[in-house]
């Protein structure tokens, strides 16, 4: 709170005081009060006014300056009401009560939204587990009847179901993953076997290198992440997928590289954004712009970094970086 601003704010009050003082002076002169007396009264009144104003100024300044600096320092501004100390001046107290009441109501609102959100998420999880039963049943029926025609469609259904599940998981505040050492090779071969038919149909060859190494992650989440990357490679016309792990002193970097159509340079910075489909999405169809967005979110929650490099018409390389042994930090 700057003095000039304070004075400007009090200006109407000073004007009224000045007019009142002038009237008093006129009154005193009319009654022929001695000049000395008038001077003394004026000085005393002035001193009184200055002291009151200084007092008003300082007690307000100490409250509002603390408020402003608290606000500036907080990275979560909404926590401000927790830091309010009730001042002794009336308007400050009214402000505090009002802010605290608003805060309380906001908390109620937020926890209601949280509850609703987690109820919904729970329902989605349950639904996913339920819908998987008929899918599993159909898959077995196809196999038992020797019918391979529907298998591919079932695989797609399952993939979309997984997307929903992991999208729900990626946004949840609950910790539903377990970080432990996972061998990259195991996860990758799992995803390779699942996609074997399609890879062979399209004559896509797989090359792996250095996957015999452990990283700290959740195996199921990583399985989903690699599955998404595999789907993209298949969708965008790769005929070779090379998956390599590079072990560095402080981290392990997994490169998922294919020689498909690549990503235009203009689209590259946006591929991890929600609902971004870009040029490839327009020309190839079937893109929802959700896959890589979910991948990025899951990586964020697990504490992995994910990035992309690509040259259009040559290759796409998505790399996932795993921290080593250090305490990983979720966002």
């Amino acid at each position, binding site marked *: 709170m700057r003095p000039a601003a304070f004075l400007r704010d009090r200006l109407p009050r000073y004007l009224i005081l000045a007019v009142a003082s002038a009237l008093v002076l006129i009154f005193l002169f009319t009654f022929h009060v001695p000049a000395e007396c008038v001077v003394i009264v004026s000085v005393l009144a002035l001193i009184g006014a200055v002291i009151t104003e200084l007092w008003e100024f300082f007690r307000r300044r100490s409250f509002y300056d603390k408020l402003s600096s608290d606000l500036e320092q907080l990275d979560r501004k909404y926590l401000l009401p927790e830091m309010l100390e009730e001042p002794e001046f009336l308007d400050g107290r009214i402000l505090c009560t009002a802010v605290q009441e608003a805060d309380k109501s906001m908390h109620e609102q937020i926890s209601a939204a949280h509850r609703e959100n987690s109820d919904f998420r729970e329902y989605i999880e349950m639904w996913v587990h339920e819908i998987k039963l008929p899918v599993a049943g159909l898959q*077995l029926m196809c196999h038992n009847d020797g019918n391979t025609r529907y298998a591919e469609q079932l695989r797609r259904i399952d993939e979309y179901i997984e997307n929903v599940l992991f999208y729900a998981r990626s946004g949840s505040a609950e910790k539903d993953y377990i970080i432990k050492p996972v061998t990259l090779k195991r996860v990758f071969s799992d995803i390779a076997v699942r996609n074997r038919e399609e890879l062979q149909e399209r004559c896509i060859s797989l090359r792996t290198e250095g996957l015999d190494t452990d990283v700290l992650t959740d195996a199921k989440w990583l399985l989903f992440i690699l599955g998404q990357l595999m789907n993209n490679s298949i969708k965008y016309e790769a005929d070779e997928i090379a998956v390599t792990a590079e072990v560095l002193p402080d981290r392990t970097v997994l490169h998922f590289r294919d020689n498909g159509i690549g990503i235009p340079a203009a689209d590259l910075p946006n591929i991890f954004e929600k609902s971004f489909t870009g040029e490839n999405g327009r020309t190839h169809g079937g893109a929802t712009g959700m896959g890589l967005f979910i991948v990025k979110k899951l990586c964020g929650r697990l504490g992995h970094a994910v990035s992309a490099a690509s040259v259009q018409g040559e290759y796409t390389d998505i790399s996932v970086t795993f921290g080593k042994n250090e305490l990983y930090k979720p966002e």
Partner: protein
Amino acid sequence: MKILIIEDDSALRSELSVLLKNAGYDPVCAEMTDIPAQMLSSGADLILLDINLPGTNGETLLQDFRKRSTTPVIMLTSRTSELDEVLSMSYGADDFVTKPYNPTILLLRISAVLKRSAKTGTAQTYHDAEVSTVRGSLTRGGNEQILTKNEMIIFQLLLDRIGEIVTRDELMTALWDNDEFVNDNALSVNISRLRAKLGELGFPDAIVTRKKQGYVLI
């Protein structure tokens, strides 16, 4: 081999049972009442146990069952969470397969678990040839043939189901499951090499091709 299926979804249960029957096993479906008693009294060689069961939980069942029996158990679940897998394995499950499952992979897992539990230390033989998975070789009367990893995987699968048809699809799945991402041509090459090596040992026509079905080791 008797396999007990504990699954509450009736469609899944009957399809699983058909799958296992076609693969040469003897499946039995459990009733949904007093499951623990059935688990103990069934005399099965392997149990397929669903995690989500009405009124109970596969993990709890497994934990209690393990106190009394060492029969191998494979957990089946539609829950893809690492927590369930870690819990199940810590309660003594032999494997954990998530629904929907690739039927070929499920069968591979089942045969792997059965083989692990049946292992008594005796060396495997093919007729009068000795099979050594450790050395990756076949020996007959002083003549040793070294098999590559791929050839060994193929031979092992054919040997486990000797006299039965093994499809190319199954062979391919087994290879891929062992990180050998081979294509169709490579599989054919591997099989013809394996044939040549078996020929060297005096089994020239050991692997018979069944058109559009697969291969049989005789």
